[in-house]
C-alpha cells in the first residue's frame, strides 16, 4: 500500500511538533524518518495509525484519508512496533502474538498455525518460546516477539518507532540484519523511526531527515550523504564519505567499474592484498590503509578471482561520481 502525508501539521498549544509535512512512500518501500530528538518524527509516524490526529492536512493510505477509516479497523491492519516493545505481561508469547488475530476473530487453529509460522520467521523456536512469559525474555527476544506480534495479521503497512533502540549494540546489529532478511521475504510498506543515522543508512530505501517539525530532505541513502544542505551535512557528520563506502559492496563496484581482467592486473602493478566481494568498500579502504597498498584483489566467497579494486574506485564512490 502507498502512504502519503499531505501538508500534515500538528500543534500542541503554540508549539508546532510537525509543520507542513508532505511525503509519499511508494508501495513496498522502507522509509526511515530520522532526525534529532523532538524533530517530529515520532509524531509523524503516529499520525498514520491515528495515535495522533493532525491539526491540519491529511494522511492517505492507498489514496484514502485515514480519518475516514474507523480507527480500530485502521489500526488492526497496520503493524506497530515500539521501542519499549510493550508486550502484555499477563499473556504468554503465543497469546501476545495472537492478539491482533484474536481482535480480528480468527479461529483458534488458524491463530495457532500463524503463531508458529511467525516465531519461526523471527528465529525463536516455537516449542521453546510459545509458552514463555514476557518477564523471562531478554531484550532482544522480547523485540523479536514484538515484531512477530506486529506482523501477525499480515498487515500491508508496518510502523516501527525506534524498535531496536533499547537493546545492546551487538543485539541491535543482529536484529537489523534479521529484519532486512524478513523484509526481503515480506515486501511491506514500512515507516521506520530512528535517531541513529547508521541504522537509517543500513535499512532505508529512502531516508527523510526532519528538523524542528519540518522535512529537510528525503532521498536514497547514497544521495543523502552527498546532500549539500548545511543541516544535513552537519547531521551526517564528517565521516559521511565513510558511511557511503560502508553501504557499497566490493562486488557491486567491481561489476560497475573495472572489467574482469583474467591474467593481467593493469599498470599499477600486482596487488598482494585480497578482499572478498561481499565486503564493504569501507572495509576495503581499511585494508588498503593497513597494507599501505592502493589496490586489492577481489575474490568471490568461493575463492574465485573477480578483478581488481583500486583506490580510484573508492574515491569515485566516496564522492558519488557515477553511481549513487
Amino acid at each position: 500500500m502507498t502512504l502519503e502525508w499531505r501538508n500534515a501539521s500538528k500543534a500542541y498549544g503554540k508549539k508546532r511538533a510537525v509543520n507542513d509535512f508532505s511525503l509519499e512512500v511508494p508501495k513496498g518501500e522502507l522509509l526511515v524518518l530520522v532526525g534529532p530528538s523532538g524533530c517530529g518524527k515520532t509524531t509523524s509516524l503516529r499520525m498514520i495509525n491515528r495515535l495522533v490526529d493532525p491539526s491540519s492536512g491529511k494522511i492517505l493510505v492507498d489514496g484514502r484519508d485515514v480519518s475516514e477509516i474507523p480507527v480500530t479497523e485502521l489500526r488492526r491492519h497496520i503493524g506497530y512496533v515500539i521501542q519499549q516493545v510493550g508486550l502484555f505481561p499477563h499473556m504468554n508469547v503465543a497469546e501476545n502474538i495472537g492478539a491482533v488475530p484474536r481482535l480480528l476473530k480468527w479461529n483458534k487453529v488458524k491463530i495457532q498455525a500463524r503463531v508458529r509460522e511467525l516465531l519461526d520467521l523471527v528465529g525463536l523456536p516455537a516449542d521453546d518460546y510459545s509458552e514463555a512469559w514476557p518477564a523471562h525474555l531478554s531484550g532482544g527476544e522480547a523485540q523479536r516477539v514484538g515484531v512477530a506480534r506486529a506482523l501477525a495479521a499480515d498487515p500491508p503497512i508496518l510502523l516501527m518507532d525506534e524498535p531496536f533502540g533499547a537493546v545492546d549494540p551487538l543485539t541491535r546489529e543482529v536484529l537489523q540484519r534479521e529484519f532486512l532478511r524478513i523484509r526481503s521475504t515480506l515486501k511491506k510498506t514500512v515507516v521506520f523511526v530512528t535517531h541513529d543515522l547508521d541504522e537509517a543508512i543500513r535499512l532505508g530505501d529512502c531516508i527523510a531527515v526532519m528538523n524542528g517539525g519540518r522535512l529537510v530532505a528525503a532521498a536514497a541513502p547514497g544521495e543523502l550523504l552527498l546532500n549539500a544542505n548545511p543541516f544535513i551535512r552537519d547531521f551526517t557528520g564528517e565521516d559521511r564519505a565513510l558511511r557511503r563506502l560502508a553501504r557499497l559492496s566490493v562486488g557491486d563496484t567491481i561489476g560497475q567499474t573495472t572489467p574482469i581482467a583474467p591474467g593481467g592486473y593493469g599498470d599499477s602493478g600486482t596487488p598482494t592484498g585480497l578482499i572478498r566481494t561481499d565486503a564493504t568498500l569501507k572495509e576495503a579502504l581499511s585494508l588498503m590503509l593497513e597494507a599501505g597498498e592502493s589496490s586489492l584483489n577481489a575474490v568471490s566467497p568461493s575463492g574465485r578471482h573477480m578483478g581488481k579494486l583500486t583506490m580510484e574506485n573508492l574515491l569515485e564512490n566516496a564522492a558519488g561520481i557515477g553511481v549513487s
Partner: protein
Amino acid sequence: MRLIERERIDVVPLTAVLLASVSFFGPFAALKENRVVDGQIIRGFELLGGGLGAGVLILGALTLVVALSGGGGKTRNLVYSFAGVACLWITAVLLVRAGALLGQAGEAPRVSPAIGFWGLPGASYVLIDHSRRQAPRWRSLMLTVCALVPVCLIFSDGRGAAISVFQEWLERQDRFLDELIVHVRLFVFAILGATVFGLPLGIIASKNKRIERLVIAFVDVVQTIPSMALFGLLMAPLAALSRAFPLLRSLGLRGIGAAPALIALTLYALLPIARNAIVGIASVPLPALEAGRGMGMSRRQLFWRIKWPLALPYILTGLKTASVQAVGNAAVAALIGAGGLGIMIFQGLGQAAPDLILLGVLPLILMAVLVNRGWELVIRRAVSPGLLGEVL
C-alpha cells in the same frame, strides 16, 4: 565446626523446637473449680507417663539434631512434618490427661489454657508450614488431615469437655452458632458493599487526577476515625433518618443494630479496595497500553484485556486486606447491638472471664486465617502466572 555453617542450620524449625520445649516444660494449663478462681498450675511433662514422655523427648532431640546438622532436604522435611503433627497430638493428649485429673469439686470445673496450651500448636503450625514449603500440594493437604483428624477424634467423644473454652461453648451452643452466622453475614455484606462501591470508585478515580485525590482523601479520613467513634457518629444521623422516615425504619434502618454497623464496616473496607484498584490500574505499564491501542483495541477491549488483568493482583490483594480487616472490625459491631462474635468478647471482658473472651476470639482468628487463605487461593487461580513472579 560444620554445624555452625550458616546454610546448614535451619533457623525456623529451631525456633519451633525451642517454643515446643518451653511449652512442654512450662505451665501447660490451670485446673480450676470455676471460671474466676486462679486454679492449680500443671506442666506438660508432669502429665505424660514415662514411656510417652521419653518418646516426646527423643522426638524433640531428633528434630533438634536434624535442624542443626546437614542431611538431605527430604529427610529433614519428613522429620519436621512428623514433629509438627506430633506436637498437635501431644497437645490433645495433654488436654485429655489434664481433664482426667480434674476433680468433681466446684460448679464448673475446667482446664484453663496457659502458655503451653498455645505454644505446642504454635510450634506444630510453624513446623508443618516450614516442611511443606517445597512440597507438592497433595502432601500438605495430607499433613493437615494427619494433624487434625486424630485431634478431632479425641475430642468428639466428650473427653475434651473439661477445657474451659469448650465449657463456655457448651453453656451457649445455640447462641454461639447464631452469633457466628451474624458475624459472617456482617462481614460478607460489608465486603460486598465495599466492592460494589469501591471498585468502580477506584476505576473512575484512576482516570482523573482530581477525582483520585478526592477519593483518596475521603477513604483516608474514614480510616483514621476509630471504629467506636465512627459507630457513634453514624448513630445520631441514622436515628434521625429512622424517625423522619417510617419506611426506612420498617426496613431495619435504626441508630443502633445492623444498619450502622454495616455502613461503618463498608466504609472501612472502602480504603483498601478503592486504593488498591487505583494503584493496580496505575501499575499497568504504559508501553503495554500504547501497544494495545496501536493494534486497534477499543476502549472496552483495552480495559478488559489489558488493564483489568494487569490490575487484578492488586485489586484482589485489596479485597483480601479488606476482608481480613472486616472480620476483626465486625467484632466491635457488637457494641451497638449488631451482634456477632464480639458479644462473647465484650461479655467476657465485663465478667472478667478470659475463657468466654477466648470463645469469641478463637473463632475470629480461625475465620481471619481462613478468609486470608481463601483469597490467596483465589489470587493464585485468577492471576496470570506471568504476573505472579513479580507482583506477589
